[in-house]
C-alpha cells in the first residue's frame, strides 16, 4: 500500500467571513502577502509547535511521504539537482535549478537527461565534504533498496535498470551514470515529461554513503540526516562519523518531543539563489504540543510564531473577524481536491447517466458551507486543482451546476429508471452504503448528500467511520464500496500526472491499499482476480490518455492534461469533485514575514523571518 504523501487527513475550517481566497473561486485572488508587521531582518528563532510530527517513514527522505516533511527537506535541509522557489501560487510550483547549474533539457527522444552540477557545494557536518554526483547515485541506490521502503520509488521506475537493481539482478543502476563528479546522466526507458518534478523529490537529493550507508532499515537514517541545505538538525556537528558504530542519533531530533534546526556552517549562499532560500532565521524549533488549542493560544500571545497544523475553526473565525489578527491569517490554495467517488464496477454507478445525474444532484455550495465557506476552499468543478495548470484551465468551466431538473433528465436516460420519471426505481438504487467520516465537516454534510441523492431516487445508508478506518474500507477492493465521500487527494508534485496516475490508472488497482476507488480502467480479468463483479457495459479506461500526455513537455503537456481532465469529468465521471481546498495557517506577532510554499503546501520555512522584539 502506498502511503500517499497527500492522503489528506483533513481539517474542518471555519465559517470565516468573506476572505481573499486563492485558487479558482471566481473573482478571488491570491493573498500573496508577507504577513508582515515590520521590516524583514535576519536572525532570531522561529518557534513552531505541532500536535504530532506524523512522519510516515521516521524522516528518512528516501521513504518519507509526509507533505510537511517535504517542506522541511527542500526549504531547509536537502538540496536536489532541481527544486522550487518556495513561493506561493503557480510560481511556487515551477521547477528551478538548485544543485544543477541550469535547468536540464532532455535529449530529442526524451530519453536522456544530462545534468551538470555546481561545484563547491558541501555537506553539513559531520560529513563536511563537497557533494558530488556519486552522492546522487547513492540516493537512487537507496531508492532501489527494498528494506528502506521508498514509498514513492515508483516515480523513478522509468529510469533504465532501476527494476533490475531493486530485484538484486544488477549491482548498479545502469540508467544512471556519472562521467565526472559534476555530471550525471539519466537514461529513461520511456519519455517522461515530468521527470524534473521527480528529480526534485527529496528521495533524489544527495546522500553521503559514509553516513546514510550505515542505515539499512527503513526510516533509521531520519535520526542522522546529513544536510546539504542552509540548515541542519541540531547536534550534527557533535556526531563522530568515523565509523558507523560511532554514529549516535542526533540530539536535535526526538520523534516524540521536538526537532531543532540550526544554520549549516558549510552552507554557501553563493551556490544558491537567495530568492529561493532567504534563510532569515538562525534557528527553527518545532515542539510537540498535544493541545491544539493551546498551540494557537500561544501563537496568538506570541509565545510561538506559528504551527504547521491547521487551526481549529474557531481560531480561524477569530482571526478572520479581528482586524489586528487578520493580517496573520494566511489562506492559500492547498492544491487538493475533495470528492465523492462512485464505484464504476457496480450498479447503479456502472451507468454513466446515473453518475452524471449524481453530479447535477449534489449541492456543492452547501458542502462548501459545511466546510466553512470560502476560507476553506472553492467549489471544485473538475479533478485537478487549478494551480497545477499554471492558471491555464478555463475558469468558466462548470459541467455540473447544481440543478435537480438536469439531474432528473440524466436519470431518465438511465436503464435504472424504467418508468422514465427522473427517479431511479431499480432495487440497486436502494440501501447503498455510503462511506464517510465520523467528524465535522463530514457529519455536517452527510445528510445533505443523502437528501440530494434522494431526489433522483438514489437511497444511501451513510456509514460514518473514523478517518483511518474509512480510508482502509474504501481502499479494500473486495469491500466493493458503492459510493464514498471521505476521500481527498493532493498533489505529490505540481503535475496533473500525480492525480490521473494513482487515482484512475488501471495499474494502480490493487486488492488492498488501492487508491483508484472508482476502479477506472478495471478489466473483466482483473475483476475476477479481485473477486468483484464486472458490469456488462464494461468500465471506461484512461490509460491511453495518461500515457499520451506523459512524455509531453511544457504547454503541450498542460493542454493534454486539461483535455484529459475535461474528458474524465464528461466521459468517465468517476467523481463528484466538490471542494478545491485551501491551506490555512496563522502566525504569531513574532513572525515578521510569512511566505507560503505552494509546492509543499506549508509555510515556506526558507523565507520566514521573525522579529525577536515581538516574541514572548
Amino acid at each position, binding site marked *: *500500500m502506498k*502511503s500517499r504523501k497527500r492522503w489528506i487527513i483533513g481539517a474542518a475550517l471555519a465559517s470565516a467571513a468573506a476572505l481573499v481566497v486563492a485558487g479558482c473561486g471566481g473573482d478571488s485572488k491570491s493573498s500573496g502577502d508577507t504577513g508582515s508587521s515590520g521590516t524583514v531582518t535576519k536572525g532570531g528563532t522561529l518557534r513552531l509547535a505541532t500536535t*504530532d510530527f*506524523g*512522519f*510516515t*517513514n*521516521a524522516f*528518512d527522505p528516501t*521513504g518519507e*511521504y509526509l507533505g510537511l516533511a517535504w517542506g522541511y527537506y527542500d526549504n531547509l535541509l536537502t538540496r536536489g539537482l532541481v527544486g522550487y522557489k518556495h513561493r506561493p501560487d503557480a510560481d511556487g510550483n515551477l521547477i528551478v535549478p538548485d544543485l544543477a547549474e541550469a535547468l536540464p533539457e532532455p535529449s530529442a527522444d526524451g530519453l536522456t537527461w544530462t545534468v551538470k552540477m555546481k561545484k563547491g557545494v558541501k555537506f553539513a557536518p559531520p560529513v563536511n565534504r563537497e557533494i558530488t554526483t556519486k552522492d546522487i547515485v547513492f540516493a537512487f541506490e537507496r531508492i532501489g533498496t*527494498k*528494506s*528502506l*521502503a521508498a*514509498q514513492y520509488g515508483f516515480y523513478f521506475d522509468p529510469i533504465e535498470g532501476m527494476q533490475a537493481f531493486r530485484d538484486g539482478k544488477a549491482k548498479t543502476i545502469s540508467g544512471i551514470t556519472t562521467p565526472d563528479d559534476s555530471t550525471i546522466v539519466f537514461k529513461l526507458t520511456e519519455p517522461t515529461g515530468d521527470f524534473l518534478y521527480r528529480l526534485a523529490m527529496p528521495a533524489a537529493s544527495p546522500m553521503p554513503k559514509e553516513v546514510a550507508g550505515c542505515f539499512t*532499515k*527503513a*526510516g*533509521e537514517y*531520519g*535520526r542522522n540526516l546529513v544536510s546539504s541545505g542552509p540548515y541542519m538538525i541540531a547536534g550534527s556537528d557533535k556526531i563522530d562519523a568515523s565509523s558507523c558504530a560511532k554514529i549516535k*542519533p542526533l540530539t536535535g531530533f526526538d*520523534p*516524540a*518531543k521536538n526537532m531543532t534546526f540550526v544554520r549549516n556552517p558549510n552552507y554557501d549562499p553563493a551556490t544558491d539563489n537567495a530568492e529561493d532560500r532567504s534563510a532569515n532565521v538562525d534557528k527553527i524549533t518545532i515542539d*510537540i*504540543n*498535544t*493541545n491544539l*488549542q*493551546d498551540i494557537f*493560544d*500561544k501563537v496568538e*500571545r506570541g*509565545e510561538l510564531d506559528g504551527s504547521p497544523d491547521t487551526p481549529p475553526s474557531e481560531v480561524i473565525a477569530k482571526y478572520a473577524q479581528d482586524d489586528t489578527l487578520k493580517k496573520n491569517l494566511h489562506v492559500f490554495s492547498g492544491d487538493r481536491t475533495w470528492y465523492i467517488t462512485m464505484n464504476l464496477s457496480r450498479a447503479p454507478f456502472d451507468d454513466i447517466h446515473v453518475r452524471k445525474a449524481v453530479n447535477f444532484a449534489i449541492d456543492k455550495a452547501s458542502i462548501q458551507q459545511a466546510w466553512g465557506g470560502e476560507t476553506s476552499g472553492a467549489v471544485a468543478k473538475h479533478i485537478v486543482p487549478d494551480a497545477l495548470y499554471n492558471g491555464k484551465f478555463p475558469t468558466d468551466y462548470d459541467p455540473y451546476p447544481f440543478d435537480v431538473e438536469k439531474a432528473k433528465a440524466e436519470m431518465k436516460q438511465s436503464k435504472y429508471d424504467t418508468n422514465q420519471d427522473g427517479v431511479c426505481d431499480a432495487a440497486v438504487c436502494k440501501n447503498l452504503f455510503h462511506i464517510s467520516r465520523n467528524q465535522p465537516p463530514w457529519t455536517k454534510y452527510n445528510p445533505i448528500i443523502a437528501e440530494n441523492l434522494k431526489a433522483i431516487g438514489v437511497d444511501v445508508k451513510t456509514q460514518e467511520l473514523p478517518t*483511518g478506518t474509512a480510508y482502509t474500507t474504501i481502499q479494500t477492493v473486495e469491500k466493493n464500496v458503492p459510493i464514498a465521500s471521505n476521500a481527498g487527494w493532493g498533489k505529490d508534485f505540481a503535475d496533473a500526472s500525480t492525480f490521473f496516475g494513482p487515482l484512475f490508472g488501471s495499474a494502480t488497482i490493487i486488492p488492498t*491499499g488501492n487508491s483508484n476507488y472508482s476502479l477506472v480502467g478495471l478489466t473483466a480479468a482483473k475483476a475476477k482476480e479481485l473477486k468483484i463483479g464486472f458490469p456488462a457495459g464494461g468500465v471506461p479506461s484512461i490509460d491511453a490518455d495518461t500515457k499520451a500526455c506523459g512524455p509531453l513537455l511544457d504547454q503541450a503537456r498542460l493542454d493534454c492534461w486539461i483535455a484529459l481532465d475535461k474528458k474524465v469529468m464528461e466521459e468517465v465521471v468517476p467523481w463528484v469533485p466538490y471542494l478545491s481546498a485551501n491551506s490555512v495557517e496563522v502566525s504569531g506577532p513574532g513572525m515578521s514575514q510569512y511566505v507560503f510554499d505552494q509546492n509543499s503546501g506549508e509555510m515556506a520555512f526558507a523565507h520566514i523571518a521573525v522579529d525577536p522584539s515581538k516574541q514572548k
Partner: protein
Amino acid sequence: MGRYIIRRLLWSIVVIVAVTLFSFLIFYVLPSTDPAAAFAGKQQTAELKAEVRKNLGLDKSKPVQYLTFVKTLVVGDKYGWPGFNKSFNTRDGIHDELFRRLNVTLQLAIGALVIWLIMGVLIGVLSALKRRTKWDRAAMGFALLGISTPVFFLGLVSLFVFWFKLKIAPGTGFVHFSDNPGQWFTHLLMPWIVLALLFAAVYARIVRGSMLEVMGEDYIRTARAKGVPERQVITRHMLRASITPVVTLAGIDFAVLLSSAVVTESVFNIPGMGAYVLQAVNNQDLGVVMAVTVLAAFFVTLASLLVDILYAFLDPRVRYT
C-alpha cells in the same frame, strides 16, 4: 501474614501471565488483518512488513510467537529491559521512551494523588461531621461539579483564565525537576489540581459516605463512652475505619491513571504515557499501544497486590481470609 503475601504474590504472577496472554491474543491473534500489517502501521511496504515479521517472529507458529513475545518482555531486548521491541513508526526502541514518559506521568500522578487524597479526605470528613449543614451542601455541590465537569473543559478553562487572561500561571508544557525545580512545580501545579479535582470530588463523596456509616458504628459510641476526646474519636476511630476503602481505591485509581491521564496530558502538553499512547494511536503505532497496554496491566496488577497487602496491614480482619 507472610503466607498471605506469598499467596497474593503468586496470584499476581498468574494474573500477569494472563495479561500477556490476553495482550498477545488481542494484538496478534484476534485481528482479522495480518498482524505484520497492523504493526507496520501507516506505511505498509512489503519490505517493512517483512522486517516486522522477522522482528516479531510472525512466520513461526502462534505458540512460538507468544513465547517470543514473553521472552522479549522477560529477558529484554537490545533496547533495554523489559523488552518492548521497536516502534515501526519512529524506528526507535520503545523501551527508553516508554520509561521516560512513565517517569513524567508518575510525577503528574503522584502530585495529583497527594492533592486529591488531602482534598477528598478533608472535604469528606468535614462534610460528614457537619452533615446537613450549609457547609455539607456546599461541599457536596462542589463534589457533584467536580464529578460532572469534564477534565478537558476544566483544563482548558483554567488555562484560559490563569494563563491566557490573568497571566499568573505558566502555560502548558513540562519542565524537568533537574532543569529548574521552580518551573517544574509551577508547570505541574495546574495539571495536578485539574487532574486531582475529579478524584477529589469522587473521594470526598466516598469518604463522607464512609464516615457517616462509621459514625453510626457502635465502637464510636464505645470510644466516646470511654471518655476519649472528640478529636481523637474523629481521627483515630472514625477516619481510621473509613479510610480503608479509600486506600484500596486510591491504589487502583493511581495505577490506572498511569496510562489514562490522556486528557490532562494532552491539554497541558505533558509528555507522559497517556499522550504517548494517544500519539501512537494516531500514528497507528501498534507496538507502542501494546507496550503501554502491557505496562499498564502490569501496574494495575502490581497496585492491586500492594493494595491487598496494605489492606491487610490496615485491616487485621483480612489477614486470615
